[in-house]
């Protein structure tokens, strides 16, 4: 029984490995059970897993386009300033 437990239980190093790669690769059934078990019992790895999610979500948020719903726009003054800078550059060529 003890041997079996050792085989099932992940070390923190293994658990953080599964937690890190799971957004890249679907874990096998056994691996995901092993990870869940470990996270239930290990506070540090539970935090690690949670923070991993925050990091992934923030990175996605940096890339995704939810600014599209915003109403902000460039001031007319700045826009024409940019316009003329662009024109100037095109004409130089």
């Amino acid at each position, binding site marked *: 029984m003890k041997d079996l437990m050792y085989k099932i239980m992940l*070390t*923190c190093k293994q658990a953080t490995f599964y937690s890190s790669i799971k957004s*890249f690769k679907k874990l096998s059934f056994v691996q995901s059970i092993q990870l869940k078990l470990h996270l239930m019992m290990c506070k540090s790895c539970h*935090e690690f897993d*949670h923070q991993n999610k925050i990091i992934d979500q923030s990175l996605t948020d940096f890339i995704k386009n939810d600014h*599209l719903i915003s109403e902000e726009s460039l001031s007319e003054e700045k826009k024409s300033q940019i316009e003329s800078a662009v024109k100037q*550059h*095109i004409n130089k060529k």
Partner: protein
Amino acid sequence: MFAIQPQTAYLQPVAENKKYACDPSLWVDQFSDEFFRFAIYRVKNREVAEDLVQETFLSGLKSLSNFRRDCPEKSWLYNILRNKIIDHFRKKTNHEIKQSSTVIEADDDSFFSNFFNPGGQWNNEASPENWNISADKILERKEFMEFLILCLSLLPEMWEKVFNLKTIEDLPSKDICKELNITPSNLWTIIHRAKLQLRGCLEKRWLNK
């Protein structure tokens, strides 16, 4: 360097008749408001966002000859804008970057010994603390993103490439391996190490600042 390439090498060359249109004289009209919103949402500062939009168009013009037109000009310009935003965050925190971090390039054994004891359990000083914040709330904290970008830029180049291909290009893992010429198990190790490093860096710099 945490640089997002405006183009990706994995894209096959396209036939002449399949190239996308590109007309810089329409850029300001077509894209400037949208780009401005993208920038201000991230940098939270009007003037900075305006300047970033301008810089994006100007560097687009400068590198126009490198644009292979294998994607719409808008996507290509978006990549430039993202780079500009990242550079902006980087400049803000540049003084910190200089004094970083040699552990990251160490080999696996000595790298992992910074985090885990030989039995595979957390070392006391490396074990994650409770950040005491939910995933939703953290996105409201604008400085978190700055620290995240800073910590990303401290990672080895290989992880930045993995990050770009995964998050920006949304490539499946097997294509990431092909692109970077590494095995899947290399990729998993890179990701594991990067996540450990990134989380530790955030805790040290952002939480305990």
